[in-house]
C-alpha cells in the first residue's frame, strides 16, 4: 500500500514518546522521500497527456493524495521530535544525556543549541536583577532550605557562599532550595520531608 513506510515512522514515534528519543531514522526518511519523488515523477510524465482521459487523471489524483499523505507523516515526525526535545530541555536541563544527544540528527542538535541560547537570553532579560530562572520553583517554595539525600555520587558542588561540599551517595545535606532544585529534578538528590 502507498505511504506505508511513512506510517512506520509515525508508529515508531508513538512507541517512544515517554522519557526517551528514538534514533533519528534517516534511512526510512530517505526511503519515504524516494517514494514521493517516484510518485511525483510518474505524475509529471503523465500530466501532459491526461487531458480528456479520465483514468489517467484519476491515477494522478490518487498519487497526489499519497504524496500529500507522505508529506504530512514526515512533517509530523520531525515536528513531534522537536516538541519532545523542547520538553526535554525543561526536564533534563541545558545538557541532555549522551544517549539522547546521540539519537539526534545534526539539524536537531543545531536547533537545540539555538533554543537553549534563546531561552537563556530571554530568562536574562526578565525579572529585576540579573534575570529569572523559569525552570526553578516548579512548585511554590515553602522553605528557604531543604534537607536532601544523595541518590548517586555526583562529585564536588560549590554552594553560593563559597563552601565546597562533596555529594556522595547516601550523604545528607541541608542546602538552599534554589541551589539544589535542579539536582532533585535530575534525580541526583532526594528531597526528605518529615
Amino acid at each position, binding site marked *: *500500500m502507498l505511504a506505508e513506510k511513512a506510517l512506520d515512522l*509515525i508508529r515508531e514515534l508513538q512507541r517512544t*514518546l515517554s522519557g526517551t528519543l528514538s534514533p533519528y531514522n534517516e534511512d526510512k526518511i530517505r526511503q519515504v522521500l524516494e517514494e514521493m519523488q517516484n510518485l511525483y515523477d510518474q505524475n509529471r510524465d503523465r500530466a501532459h497527456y491526461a487531458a480528456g482521459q479520465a*483514468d489517467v487523471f484519476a491515477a494522478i489524483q*490518487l498519487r497526489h*493524495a499519497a504524496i500529500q499523505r507522505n508529506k504530512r507523516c514526515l512533517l509530523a515526525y520531525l515536528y*513531534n521530535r522537536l516538541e519532545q526535545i523542547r520538553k526535554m530541555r525543561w526536564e533534563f536541563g541545558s545538557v541532555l544525556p549522551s544517549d539522547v544527544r546521540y539519537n539526534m540528527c545534526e539539524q536537531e542538535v543545531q536547533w537545540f543549541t539555538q533554543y537553549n541560547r534563546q531561552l537563556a537570553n530571554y530568562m536574562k532579560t526578565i525579572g529585576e536583577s540579573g534575570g529569572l530562572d523559569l525552570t526553578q520553583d516548579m512548585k*511554590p517554595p515553602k522553605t528557604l532550605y531543604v534537607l536532601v539525600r544523595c541518590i548517586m555520587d555526583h562529585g564536588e558542588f560549590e554552594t553560593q557562599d563559597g563552601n565546597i561540599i562533596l555529594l556522595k551517595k547516601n550523604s545528607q545535606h541541608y542546602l538552599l532550595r534554589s541551589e539544589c532544585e535542579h539536582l532533585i529534578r535530575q*534525580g541526583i538528590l532526594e528531597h526528605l520531608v518529615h
Partner: protein
Amino acid sequence: MAAYSVPAGVCTNYFNIDDILASQEKVPCVFNAKVAALGYLDQSTTDVDLNVGTKLELPFWLARFLQKGARNIVTVDTPKTYKEGYRNIFTADPNVVDLHRLGPFFYLFGGKLLTLQLPDAEEIADVLLKTFQGRFRKIMDGSQNALHADLTSQTSVLDDQERHLFAAGQDSLHGFHRWEKRETEKLSTSVMVANHRKRKRIGAMPTAS
C-alpha cells in the same frame, strides 16, 4: 503544557500523531472509475489498471480524498464495526465491548467517518454518543476510586481517548491523595528523567550479567 488535553474528535491537527494513526483505519471502497496503471494496489488481480467495480479496503485518508466532491472516484461503504450489527451490540450494552480491539481509535475514527456522507451517518453519530455515555460512568468510577490496584484489566478494553480520560482521573486522584498526606511540597525527580533512567537500566542489564 496541557497535560490533560484529550484530543478532540473532529478537530484535525496536522501534526497530531493520533489523528494520523486514526486516519489510517481501513474503509471498504468500490471504484466508480477506471484508474490507470495502479493495478498493483489490488493484490488479487494481475491487471495493469484498477477497473470499475473493484472492491478495495482503502485507508481513510485516501478514501476521503477520492470520494470528495466532483472527483467521485470511489464509493465508500460503512466499515464493519460501525454497521448495524455492531451498532446493536453497542446499544445493548456498551460496557462489555472491547473498544481497543475494535480499533484503538473508535471515537476519533468514528468522528472522521461522519465526514464521508454515509447514508447511515446519523445512526453512527448517535451510537458513538450513546456508547460513550454508557461507558463513561464506569471509566470515571474506576479511575477515581482505585488507588493502589492493578487496573490493566479495566484499561485494556478502553479506546485510546478513554485511556486519556482514565489517566487524567487517576492523576487527579493521586494528586488529591498527595495533598491529604501533605506531600505536595516535596520536590521530586521529573517523570521524564525517571522514565529515562528505567529504560537505561533495562538496556544495561544484558551487559551487566
